[in-house]
């Protein structure tokens, strides 16, 4: 059975190379001989019934405004799908919108969908630069570029703890959030390219959802390890 990958708001929220996360998932299935199909789901498009893993990225403020209403309409469905085991990777803007709300500076609060127990407030400066974090998946590297400061509620656990960079809010040392198979993060890079173990974690959950019980064959990820090592050595 084919594994169906959904790129949510591929056209509206695709800045900072977030398409790369989709490319990584696709290739890592193809290289193992597992049939894969990618769906670009935009504003107004229904979520395919067969969806086994979902990826969403960051956007310009303008792009974020375009998707806000559409995303609000999808909130209950996305929460239900997550409860059924749908793995998701939500980066930057989509991570923020997956929380309870985004509070801009001197403007009305934007409601999120409440999929993750986090909330975000506009910060005084942009947090920009290379990030290294330690996580349950081992060391992670990426690049952050956000002005929103995200705070975790009691139901969320962080994806990792920063050793370089600011992460969620620059104050509590946390980066990203997890709930079940849903991962939210500020790390661009794209994250999955230099963290193949996270990609395979999402794909493992996707295979189970697709009714395939095989295990994922190991791939040669030496280049990813080398690129991650270099990234950790670069200036902020």
């Amino acid at each position: 059975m084919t594994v169906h990958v959904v790129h949510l708001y591929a056209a509206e929220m695709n800045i900072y190379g977030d398409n790369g996360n989709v490319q990584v998932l696709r290739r890592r299935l193809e290289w193992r001989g597992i049939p894969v199909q990618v769906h670009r789901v935009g504003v107004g498009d229904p979520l395919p019934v067969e969806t086994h893993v979902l990826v969403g990225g960051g956007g310009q403020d303008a792009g974020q405004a375009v998707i806000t209403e559409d995303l609000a309409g999808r909130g209950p469905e996305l929460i239900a799908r997550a409860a059924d085991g749908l793995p998701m990777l939500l980066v930057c803007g989509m991570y923020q919108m997956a929380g309870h709300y985004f509070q801009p500076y001197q403007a009305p609060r934007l409601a999120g969908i409440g999929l993750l127990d986090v909330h975000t407030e506009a910060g005084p400066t942009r947090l920009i630069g290379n990030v290294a974090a330690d996580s349950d998946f081992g060391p992670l590297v990426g690049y952050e570029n956000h002005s929103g400061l995200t705070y975790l509620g009691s139901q969320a656990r962080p994806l990792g703890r920063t050793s370089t960079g600011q992460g969620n809010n620059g104050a509590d040392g946390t980066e990203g959030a997890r709930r079940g198979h849903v991962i939210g993060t500020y790390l661009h890079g794209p994250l999955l390219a230099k963290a193949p173990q996270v990609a395979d974690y999402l794909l493992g959950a996707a295979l189970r959802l697709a009714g395939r019980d095989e295990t994922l064959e190991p791939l040669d990820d030496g280049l990813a390890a080398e690129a991650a090592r270099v990234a950790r050595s670069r200036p902020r």
Partner: protein
Amino acid sequence: MDVVSTWLGKGVQGSLRLVGRTGGTLPGKVVESVDATFLARRLGTLPHGVTVVSGTNGKTTTTKMLAHVLAGRYRVLTNPTGSNFTRGAVSAVVDSSTWGGRLDHDLAVLELDEAYAARFVEQVAPRRVVVLNVLRDQMDRFGEIDHTARLLGRAVAAATAEVVLNRDDPRVAALAEHAQVPVRWFGVAPSLRPVFRSDDELHAEMTAESLPPPRHVADVELLDYSPSASLYRIGDRQFRIPLRAEGAHNAQNAAAVVAAALGEGLSESEIADRLADVPPAFGRGESVAVRGRTVVLQLAKNPGGFRLALLSQAEQPPDVSVVAINDEYADGRDVSWLWDVDFSSLRGTRGPVLTAGTRAADMALRLRYDEVPVAAVVPDLVGAVDQAVAAAPEGGRIVVYTTYTAMWRLHELLRDRPASRRRGRRR
């Protein structure tokens, strides 16, 4: 005071030359800090004023082309160092002034990046502002592409005679609303639009038929592009112009040059003749001979530019390709943008592909996910060029796609080699 400022700048330039460094922006820094209005007073005396060239990609080549075309009729002051900052402009003025503080020029053509263009126009009201494109680049510096467009809006609003805008880039076309003066439009024919995409169209399925018709009639339109000569419609006449700078993007930028030169009163045929005679800027499609091989440097510093650079090599695939990615401050620390470029065209190259620069490993990883085989990962640029030359046959052609700081390092490297000599590409 003008004489004092000029002497001060020239003194710094002289000292730099004595210690073996070239001028760059340092003389500008010294003069600017002493005398904030130096630039405005001096450039204000030019009878044909200042043309500012801005946008994300193609500023250097466009500025060079326009300065060369206008030099057929005028005495042109320009900032040829590629240092596209206000201080670079001050340096150019100091360099071109007599010791008595007089500028022996009719007009200036200045390359300014988006942020500095907005600052520059507060000091000097430009006669003309040319905006090429607004693409994603150095997001770590500018924050957002829409913010970049707002900066350009301020430059456009300051133009006193005309603005020259790209009708095919929606963010550039929208700048027309800021203009206080007439707009002269340049563009590409609808059939070429799938080649020349805006940033929002990078990942879209796109055919000429699926596009809405252009909203503005172009005064100058690129009708057909080929590596040997490009066809332009200027007004209602057609001109075939051979360009010596490689790359489809240079053919598009030349349309902006034609539009600006028309505004300065040059005739169509005069412009076409001068354009055919412009030597390419280094790192913008210029080639260098190294031990019997031709090395072409292609600046590729953001998704839009990289896409066109790859496209410009598709018809004549090189014997060896090198992708040199640095992540120094001037390049932008964030290399995520590499994932917004489709590298699958490199799969078809007949020769090996090498990656180089501080992020050579990242680049190799990127190519792996586009299933492009990578022959070697060589972070050291010297070593990478040596391996590329060794891998190319005698008389072979090597193309190096390179970010900004890697390009300047390669520039020094190739210039300093006794076995190499620079030459412009002739057809």
